């Protein structure tokens, strides 16, 4: 479904990604793990075309993404739930979800999808009229994921959904990811919380200073001594 090949990208004179290759098949959940500053967020931004790659190709669902803008990529069926959630803080929960269905094709399905999101996250239904900026961190993450689902994506990109949340809430966030998986969504997730994320995905890539250093089944990586020592500290 997603095929990234030879992608390099950066900001100004700074290069964040070097010759990255990665693939996600339909129905899979794949994680990109790595320490702070490894380029994980840049990788997602380049995939959803929030930034242009310098070299390399990105193919999504049979479309070459070269030259497309972020809005056009969304229209092709990719939803990016950005780092730090980036809710429209002044709007209510339901208005945020409405924004998620901004595209004309999604607007038509607004009410069915809304119902579905509320089913998936009943807490959002309770808080539908609350200003999004006043939600708790976990609820905001829920709202951000819900907003992503409203466009009816084939592929959902999640950027550090556990960042900045209390440990108890982090657990809930991974439960949410699990629930989304079981709904059949294809998910590409970026995380620092390696131990947790490897329990909910099929495969993972290890990114270090802009380069893919290892990849494999989640269970293998979880068992790998190198990764345990370097990142989990066990």
């Amino acid at each position, binding site marked *: 479904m997603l095929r990234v090949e030879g992608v390099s990208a950066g900001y100004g004179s700074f290069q964040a990604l070097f010759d990255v290759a990665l693939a996600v098949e339909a129905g899979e959940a794949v994680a990109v793990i790595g320490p702070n500053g490894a380029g994980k967020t840049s990788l997602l931004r380049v995939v*959803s075309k929030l930034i242009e790659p310098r070299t390399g190709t990105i193919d999504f669902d049979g479309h070459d993404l070269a030259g497309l803008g972020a809005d056009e990529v969304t229209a092709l069926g990719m939803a990016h739930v950005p780092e730090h959630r980036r809710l429209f803080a002044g709007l209510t929960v339901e208005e945020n979800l409405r924004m998620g269905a901004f595209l004309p094709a999604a607007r038509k399905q607004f009410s069915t999808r809304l119902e579905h999101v509320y089913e998936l996250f009943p807490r959002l239904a309770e808080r539908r009229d609350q200003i999004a900026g006043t939600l708790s961190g976990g609820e905001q993450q829920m709202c951000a994921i819900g*907003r992503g689902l409203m466009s009816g994506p084939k592929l959902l990109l999640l950027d550090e959904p556990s960042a900045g949340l209390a440990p108890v809430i982090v657990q809930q966030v991974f439960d949410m990811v699990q629930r989304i998986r079981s709904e059949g969504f294809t998910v590409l997730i970026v995380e620092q919380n390696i131990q947790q994320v490897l329990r909910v995905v099929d495969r993972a890539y290890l990114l270090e200073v802009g380069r893919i250093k290892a990849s494999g089944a989640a269970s293998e990586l979880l068992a790998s001594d190198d990764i345990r020592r370097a990142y989990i500290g066990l």
Partner: protein
Amino acid sequence: MGRLANLIGLVALLAVPMLGVSDYVLHLGITILIWGFVYTAWSLMGRFGLVSLGHGAFLGIGAYTVTMLWNHAGISPWLGIPVAVALAVLVAVLIGYPCFRFRITGHYFALVTLALGEIVLMLIVALRDWTGGSLGVTPASALSADVSFSLVALQVSSKGVFFYVAVGLWLLGLWVWKRVDSSMARYALEAANEQEDAAASVGVDVTRTKLTITVLSAALTALGGIAYGQYQLYINPETVSGIAKSLEIVFAVIAGGMYVRLGPTFGAAFTLLLAEGLRVAFGHDVHGLDGTIYGLMLVIFIIFMPEGILGRLARLWETRRAPTSPRTASA
């Protein structure tokens, strides 16, 4: 209440010239309506965080293009207006596109636009052989003792007639505001204003959305400049371009309230009556007094009433009507 009150208000407004009020009152009315229209045009983008400090440029482009074409080439304003508006749109795109494409937002966007009004002013002054420089220029008059109205020159000596033109223009501004408000573009603009990345990731073409509202705002502002020129039959670079004029727009809108539809118009009435009041009370004896008072009030408004006078009133009204509502007045 809404629709009926609007209708009554409009009928009352349209009746004003028939009540035999003095030319001075009519003049105040026309001026408030024209500037109310311009301020409304500014707020179309200003309320979405696209604060332009250079809208004087569009006023100047509008007023001077039409007058120059009429004076030097004999081209009727009927043709001059579309040319002037097109020119304003072109300038808006030249400034707006790179800003939005490269995500120059907030203060940075305001600073980019700051120079714009001044550049147009300097251009007008530099081209003094055509434009009359800082002395200003009068559109070649098609009016005389016998002729009180010229359709070709779009000149009219009766203030009563021009009052209706101004009302029409002002209603156009309010109508555009309402159209924007009830469209998806409003959501897109609010989203782009709050979280540009998130807006793009739900499918908003941020650059195009911002550019559209900027172009719309610039075009209407140019129309306002044209109307002002055709009404006063005298324009001068200081009154239709430059930083001072551009900032005057911003001040009036902040005072009136840019998040409610009538806020900019209220701001126009408020600043104009304030200036007139000061002029009547102190004459021109105390030089710079109005500027000082404006500055002082601007500080007070920004600190204590950032939503403007009308915005504050609207909010008080809302909370009084629905004290338990979790949300306060939106737009």
